[in-house]
Each structure stands twice: as structure tokens, then as C-alpha cells.
């Protein structure tokens, strides 16, 4: 039984009815090895110390918790931003990748495989690979290669191979499928570094544990407990890491999805990419393509633990539109001097709307994770100026 909120999953990687290891037989043994190695490593003070060292000296942790003073005044709430945009490589993705890259070396793997949407996970993977002397192969949808061109250049600079994915919607879902297909033929020497709290057991749990540094730091930095804790949700890794720090408090947890990629808010139970969770599907059970201005939220599902938190009512999942997110970018830029990633701007857009609608009463405290910085989005954003 999972009696600790956001603790270890139940037997067979379950979060309530979700999760599990629905992997092709050829990947089951590899998943088992990842789980075994992660369990050992996570209980090993030496591994923890090495990860903490890399997070501090390479990634620049801890990231600050910044009170957004001018924006708070405009909104009538007290907003604090957990600044993952200031982590090295420009997003929270580096937290998970450093953990998995260390695991890969522990398992004797020489290469990292990754999928990426916004390119942030790909850049983080390429970075960790360079740092630890590994190779990196990153699968990225053709459409994302166009709209996140900056990150493609960064990955190549860092020595990673970027493989364009031309199937389906040519976005994150298809990049993930392609990475899994590739992993089947490469388990002997490669580790699949999944970028969010999705995939077969142990990934949803392991990635959340590597991301909980966000929530743990924020809990310590914020004196007391905020009324609301908010984060954007693609697969849900920055949200899971943030929520993990506050799951045992009365804080209300809010996950913000893209209107066109709302797996948690609108999905139905199903199985994709190795786990049972909530996915957008049509009447025949085919997965529906997501559509979002934010490449990192352009995914038709959500991690299994979020599906469970939703069912339990412990977290709530809401959606914002492309327009709302784009306007939130500009508002944060001009009040706080911070250009957020389009993904992170979704979380902010909900805070702005909820403050205006009175859903966040005047004076309430909100801690929001700003998952990444907006440099990668300039080509999309310049249309708005």
C-alpha cells in the first residue's frame, strides 16, 4: 500500500490503478536492471553525495525562490517563483538527467538515448553525456526541430546526435515512440534516459525522485506553507518534483496543462509508452494528437502518478490556451524581467486567470515553479511583438 503521499509506488510500480511496466518483453529485463540499480543507488550515500555535488557545482543548485513583487502587486496575490530557469541548461530537466546519467555509468552503459519535445531534455542529456564522457542520441520530432531550433544547435554543439522523427504528429509523442523502438535494439550498451514522469516502471517514480529536489528546496526556502503550489504539466516531471515537497502539507496542488494536450484533465485510462495512465483518445481507442504552442506540453498523456493524484483529489489539473500562455510570457517579462519558457508560462497563465477570477482570493500565497527560460521560444514569441 502506498500510505505515504508521493512515496514509493505500490507493488509492480502502481500508483493506484495507474503505472506498471507495459513494456515489450525485449525491454522488461532492461527496466528491471534500471529499477535495481536505482534502488541501490538511491540508498547509497555515496551516490547521493555525487549527485548533490554535480547538482551544486555543475547545475548551480539550489535555485532561488524569487518573490515576484511587481507582478504580485498587479495580481493581488503573493507569488513566489521557484527558478528552475536558472538551473544550468535553462530548465529543471538537468536534475533528472544528472541522476540518470550517473545511473547509466553505474550500469556500465556508454550511451544515453533520449526523446525531447522542447529540446530542453535533449540539451540536458547532451550536457550530462559530455560531462560524464558518454555518447548521446536524441530523438526529436521534425516539427519541434523547426520550432526549437536553438536547442538543436546546442545539442549538436555538445556532441549529441539529433535524430529527426518524421512519423505521426512529428512531435514529442512520436519522438518517444521512436526512442523506445531504438532502445529495444540498444539495451546492451545504452540507457534510455526518459525525460518525464512517464514510461514503464521504474521511470515515473525514479524521475519524480530525481526531480523532488525542486520541491524539497522550495519547502525549505519558503517559510511556512503556501496556499497554492502550481506547476505546468507536460508528462509532469517538474510538477511531480514540486508537489513531492508539499504533498504532506495542506497546500493545494494545481497542475496546469495545455488546452490541446490535457491528458490529466481530459484523458481516459489507457496504456501508452509503457505505462497505464490517462491519454487523449478517440472513440476507437486511438491516441489523439496533442496541439500546443509549447513543444514540451505537446503530449497527449500524463504521468501515472498525476492520474492517481487526480483521482484522489489531492491535486487538481486545469488547462490554459496558447494565447493565455503567450500573454503570460510578456507579462512576466515586463513586470519581473524574466522571460519564461512557453511551458512554464502555462502555470503562470493559470495564476493570472485565477487571481483575476477570484479563484485565488486576494492576499493568498502561491508558489509556482518556473520550469525553464524562454530563449528557445524566441522564434515563436517574435510573432507576438
Amino acid at each position: 500500500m502506498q500510505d505515504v503521499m508521493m512515496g514509493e509506488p505500490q507493488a509492480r510500480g502502481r500508483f493506484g490503478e495507474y503505472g506498471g511496466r507495459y513494456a515489450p518483453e525485449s525491454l522488461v529485463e532492461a527496466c528491471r536492471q534500471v529499477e535495481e540499480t536505482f534502488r541501490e543507488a538511491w540508498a547509497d550515500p555515496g551516490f547521493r553525495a555525487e549527485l548533490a555535488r554535480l547538482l551544486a557545482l555543475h547545475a548551480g543548485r539550489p535555485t532561488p525562490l524569487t518573490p515576484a513583487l511587481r507582478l504580485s502587486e498587479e495580481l493581488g496575490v503573493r507569488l513566489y517563483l521557484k527558478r528552475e530557469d536558472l538551473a544550468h541548461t535553462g530548465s529543471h530537466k538537468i536534475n533528472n538527467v544528472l541522476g540518470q546519467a550517473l545511473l547509466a555509468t553505474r550500469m556500465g552503459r556508454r550511451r544515453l538515448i533520449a526523446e525531447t519535445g522542447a529540446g530542453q531534455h535533449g540539451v540536458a542529456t547532451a550536457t550530462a553525456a559530455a560531462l560524464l564522457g558518454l555518447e548521446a542520441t536524441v530523438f526529436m520530432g521534425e516539427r519541434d526541430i523547426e520550432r526549437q531550433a536553438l536547442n538543436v544547435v546546442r545539442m549538436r554543439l555538445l556532441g549529441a546526435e539529433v535524430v529527426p522523427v518524421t512519423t505521426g504528429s512529428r512531435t514529442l509523442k512520436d519522438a518517444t515512440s521512436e526512442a523506445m523502438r531504438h532502445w529495444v535494439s540498444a539495451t546492451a550498451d545504452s540507457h534510455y534516459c526518459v525525460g518525464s514522469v512517464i514510461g514503464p516502471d521504474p521511470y515515473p517514480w525514479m524521475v519524480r525522485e530525481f526531480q523532488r529536489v525542486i520541491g524539497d528546496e522550495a519547502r525549505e526556502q519558503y517559510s511556512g506553507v503556501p496556499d497554492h503550489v502550481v506547476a505546468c504539466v507536460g508528462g509532469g516531471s517538474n510538477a511531480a518534483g514540486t508537489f513531492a515537497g508539499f504533498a504532506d502539507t495542506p497546500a493545494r496542488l494545481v497542475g496546469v496543462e495545455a488546452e490541446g494536450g490535457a491528458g490529466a484533465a481530459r484523458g481516459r485510462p489507457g496504456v501508452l509508452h509503457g505505462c497505464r495512465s490517462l491519454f487523449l483518445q478517440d472513440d476507437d481507442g486511438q491516441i489523439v494528437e496533442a496541439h500546443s504552442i509549447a513543444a514540451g506540453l505537446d503530449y497527449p498523456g500524463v504521468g501515472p502518478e498525476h492520474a492517481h493524484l487526480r483521482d484522489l483529489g489531492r491535486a487538481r489539473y486545469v488547462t490554459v490556451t496558447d494565447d493565455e500562455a503567450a500573454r503570460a510570457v510578456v507579462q512576466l517579462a515586463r513586470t519581473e524581467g524574466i522571460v519564461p519558457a512557453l511551458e512554464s508560462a502555462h502555470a503562470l497563465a493559470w495564476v493570472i486567470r485565477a487571481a483575476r477570477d477570484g479563484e485565488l482570493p486576494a492576499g493568498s500565497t502561491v508558489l509556482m515553479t518556473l520550469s525553464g527560460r524562454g530563449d528557445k521560444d524566441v522564434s515563436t514569441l517574435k510573432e507576438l511583438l
Partner: protein
Amino acid sequence: MTNPTLAVGAVEHHLRERRDAGRGLFMPYVTGCVTPNWTDYLRAFADAGADAIEIGLPFSDPTLDGVTIQQASDTALARGASTRRILADLSGLPDLGVPLVASTYYNLVLHDGPEAFCAALRRAGVDGLIVPDLPVHEADELADMAAATGVDLALLASPATPEPRLAEIADRSRGFVYAVSLMGTTGEQTALAASAAQLTRRIRRVTDRPVLLGFGISTPDQAREARRHADGVVVGAAVMRRVLDGAGPDDVRAFLATLRRALDQECDAPR
């Protein structure tokens, strides 16, 4: 130990009988609804000497399929393929005298629920099922329902499967054991992978259930070699590439006949 012939369905019964008669088993694959008259391929398969026929129910995200079957799935879905429609097409067919085995991803099974899904298969005359993203440790809810409905749920074994797990797969599989010949996705290969022989040997040590080798088998030579190790072969991408390139039922029958001959020759060869 339970008697393996108890609680097995029509597919296993049929395959055991033919295997025991010394025949190399042959299961060609077609993606349902891939062309307007797709069921004509089934007749061609039967005429070419198939011992079972695998019918793919296409899924939007076939994560264990290579480009050919991905393309076939996309083509079928663009033509409006769905589980319902494919099973409706099958219900209208005369008996081909060859058991039909559906293959699909688990999301489509869950969509209707295992009970309704298996019942619908049976109503359409489908007696077997393959779900490549459903490993044995997650298979309980479907395996129980399949057994109750009389559908043989065949499980896959991989070169990466460790020993005790391999025995469990062989024990719980029904119809046959699907031996995945190589660490990879579906798709034509230039040679039979070395892992195929080894895996088949390991499976044989733990079961007498029919063992079919699949993934990558595309030529008569490969079929002949596969037959030396296994009870038979599954041929998917090599068929579907031809279908996608415009091969009609007659062309496909001619191709499959070359594989059938290769399997038969290998059977006649002294061992």
C-alpha cells in the same frame, strides 16, 4: 504439472496437430483494412498453405513495429480502420479452415475492456490473440478473460528474457510461444539473427508448446533456417511491404508459396 493440452483453445489444438504431423508451421500477417478488399489476402494466405493467419488491428502508436508495419497501420487508419470494422469484415467471411489470430496493442484491448474485447474476437471467428506490449507480469487480467472466453493468448519471449521468466512465459502462453528472433522491432532483415536459434533452444527446454519464430523473417532461405530451430515462422513486414507496394492477393500468394515450399523442404530434409 497441469496437462498442457487441457485449457488450450482452437489455435493451439490446430497447431499442435499439424506440428505433430511433421509440418513446418506458417503464420503470415496482414494489417486489417489496409486495402478496400483486404480480406482477399486472407483467402490467398490460406491457399498458399498458411497454418494460422495473423491479423493486425492497427494502433496509432505501434511502438514495437518498424517502418513497414507503421506505414501499413497508418494507411489502414487513414482508411477508417477500427477494431469494430475489422471484426465486422471478418464476421462476413466463409470459414477459411485456418485459425485467425488477432494482434494489437494493449490500449485497444483496454478500450473495450478485456471481456468485451475477447468476446468480440470470438464472435468474429478469431481464436487467438497477440499483444506485444503486454508482458507476462501484466497479463493476468487479459489472460484470465481470454481463457474464459476461449481465446488463446500467445505470449512473446525475447532473447533478453532470463531463464525462470522464460519458463513462466512458456507455461502461461496459449496457442504457441512467440519467439522474437532478435532484439529489435518488426521489419525485414537480411539474415536470421543468431539469437533466434539460441532463444528457440531455450524455449524448447521448458515447453513442448509450438514455438513460432517471428520478427525479420523475409525470405525462403531465412524460413528454411528458422524451421531448423523452431516449429514454424511468422512473416509480417515482408508481406506488408509487398502489399504497400501494390501487390494483390495473387502476387502475395505466389510469394508465400515460396516460403511454404522452403518450410516443406526443410521438413523433408534428413535431420
